[in-house]
């Protein structure tokens, strides 16, 4: 049997009895057994749990004539970044500190996914505590890019991207604090979605930087990104930052009335040629549909990385202060070097005498970055930009120089600072068979418009249908 590449295809197959959910789990586990030793995507495989859920799904399909409308994610085999708490399933944050930690409750998002019929196949590798752009900061070894295993898959949600790109799960939940969903999506030929801050509950997800953390996900298609979002979003009594915004279903967009901005600060020297050409080709696809493009400016973009690497470590230092090894977890000396670096940096910028110069200053420049977006969106529907200045880089290439690694996030952090949604979409390949994506960024709560724009692009292109491991056999 062939694994489905979209939820629609899965539901067609299940209702036509092409396979059962149990057989589906067999198939994904077979792929995991075949590829996980090489790719290191999973830290924990929840085989028994997945089979129990699959049996439940099969009985729902047999008994309930409305199964697929009542359970919108019925039979969807999902992997979870190992930073989402899962009751009874080990959750490590890819850190030795939590190597033996089994949560007593599940994240709100996980409950919603399970209630919608999703099947949890396992917990995926990531940069420890979600700190990183390559996956190499995992305390359990890096994940490898399935398109070319000499290269990183991007981080921090590295294993989540790898698991979807190599058919070890149909979809995966990641987290995006500074690009950690969009970057690996772009490096692995996947759709990566970062919602508006405060639309999807953070409860039960190990906090990285609380004013930036966004609960996002990986899929092959934009349509599936939307289906997952429909399940995960919405108010939660346990996360008071969630805004219950009525995300009205968007009518079909008239492409001839759409205006998209190309921010000049994202098309600067240092942008790799293959990335530039890929973006230009994506723009042409939209232009053929009648979409209008305008050049525009987000003048404070160049300061986004500096603002991010003050605010984020400050919040990291505060959030990681709770890990004292008393009620759960190991002692603080087991933090890896990147976690220690961020705790130190964050503690420094918050310490007496430096708070105003660093933290307060960064929060003020953050206001300027937010205003850039607000001003820009007065005249346009969305922004189109590269996700990263280069395709995936080689394993080990940036590990010796933390500042160089931090600059990987240069095109992604601004959306987190402004709290706006962004959608990364596969758009082609560069040298060495490495995927390249672009991102659409919209105003707060404009998810529906981004989804419509994404579907418009995917209806005219087939990059998202290319498969990493199938590609391998043609080499």
């Amino acid at each position: 049997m062939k694994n489905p590449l979209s939820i629609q295809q899965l539901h067609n197959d299940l209702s036509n009895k092409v396979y059962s959910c149990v057989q589906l789990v067999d198939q994904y586990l077979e792929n995991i057994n075949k590829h996980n030793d090489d790719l290191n995507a999973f830290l924990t495989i929840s085989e028994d749990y997945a089979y129990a859920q699959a049996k439940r799904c099969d009985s729902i399909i047999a008994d309930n004539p409305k199964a697929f409308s009542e359970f919108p994610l019925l039979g969807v085999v999902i992997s979870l970044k190992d930073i989402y708490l899962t009751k009874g399933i080990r959750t490590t944050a890819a850190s030795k500190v939590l190597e033996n930690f089994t949560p007593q409750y599940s994240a709100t998002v996980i409950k919603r996914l399970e209630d919608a019929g999703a099947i949890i196949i396992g917990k995926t590798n990531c940069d420890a505590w979600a700190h990183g752009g390559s996956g190499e900061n995992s305390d359990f070894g890096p994940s490898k890019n399935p398109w070319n295993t000499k290269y990183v898959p991007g981080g921090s949600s590295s294993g989540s991207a790898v698991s979807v790109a190599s058919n070890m799960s149909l979809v995966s939940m990641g987290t995006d604090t500074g690009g950690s969903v969009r970057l690996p999506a772009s490096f692995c030929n996947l759709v990566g979605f970062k919602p508006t801050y405060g639309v999807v509950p953070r409860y039960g997800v190990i906090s990285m930087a609380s004013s930036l953390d966004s609960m996002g996900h990986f899929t092959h298609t934009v349509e599936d990104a939307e289906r997952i979002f429909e399940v995960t979003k919405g108010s939660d009594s346990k996360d008071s930052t969630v805004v219950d915004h009525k995300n009205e279903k968007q009518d079909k967009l008239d492409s001839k009335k759409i205006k998209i901005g190309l921010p000049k600060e994202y098309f600067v020297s240092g942008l790799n040629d293959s990335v530039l050409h890929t973006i230009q080709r994506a723009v042409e696809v939209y232009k053929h549909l009648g979409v209008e493009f305008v050049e525009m400016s987000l003048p404070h973009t160049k300061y986004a990385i500096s603002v991010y690497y003050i605010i984020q470590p400050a919040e990291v230092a505060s959030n990681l202060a709770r890990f004292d090894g008393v009620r759960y977890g190991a002692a603080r000396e087991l933090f890896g070097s990147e976690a220690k670096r961020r705790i130190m940096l964050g503690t420094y910028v918050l310490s007496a005498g430096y708070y105003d110069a660093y933290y307060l200053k960064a929060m003020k420049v953050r206001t300027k970055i937010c205003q850039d977006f607000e001003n820009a969106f007065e005249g346009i529907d969305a922004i189109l930009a590269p996700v990263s200045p280069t395709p995936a880089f080689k394993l080990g290439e940036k590990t010796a120089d933390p500042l160089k690694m931090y600059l990987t996030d240069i095109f992604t952090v601004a959306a987190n600072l402004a709290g706006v949604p962004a959608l990364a979409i596969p758009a082609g390949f560069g040298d060495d068979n490495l995927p390249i994506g672009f991102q659409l960024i919209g105003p707060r709560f404009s998810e529906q418009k981004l989804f419509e724009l994404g579907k418009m692009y995917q209806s005219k292109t087939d990059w998202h249908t290319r498969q990493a491991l199938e590609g391998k056999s043609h080499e």
Partner: protein
Amino acid sequence: MKSLGKKDIEHVAHLARLPLHDDEIDLYKEQLSDVLNFVNELELVDTSNVVSTSQTTGLVNVLRSDEIIAADILPVDTTISQADTIHNNLFIVPALLSKPSDS
């Protein structure tokens, strides 16, 4: 150019309750100085009369009634299940105060 010394690093490590080895102190001295020098570019941005942003939702004072939700309460044995050292259903914590010396 900002350049952190050994004392700065030791002070911050103490504030963060982070035990560091000597080689880590040397490494972070360099790396933190690099990052701080980079982020100093923010001095170039005029932020006079700019209000700081600590969150982007615009929400203020989200209130709820002060009720106990029974379903959210974990049983004691579940609550303590992840601790290494337990005594009579209590967490054993490191002593904060040292014993007065016997001498």
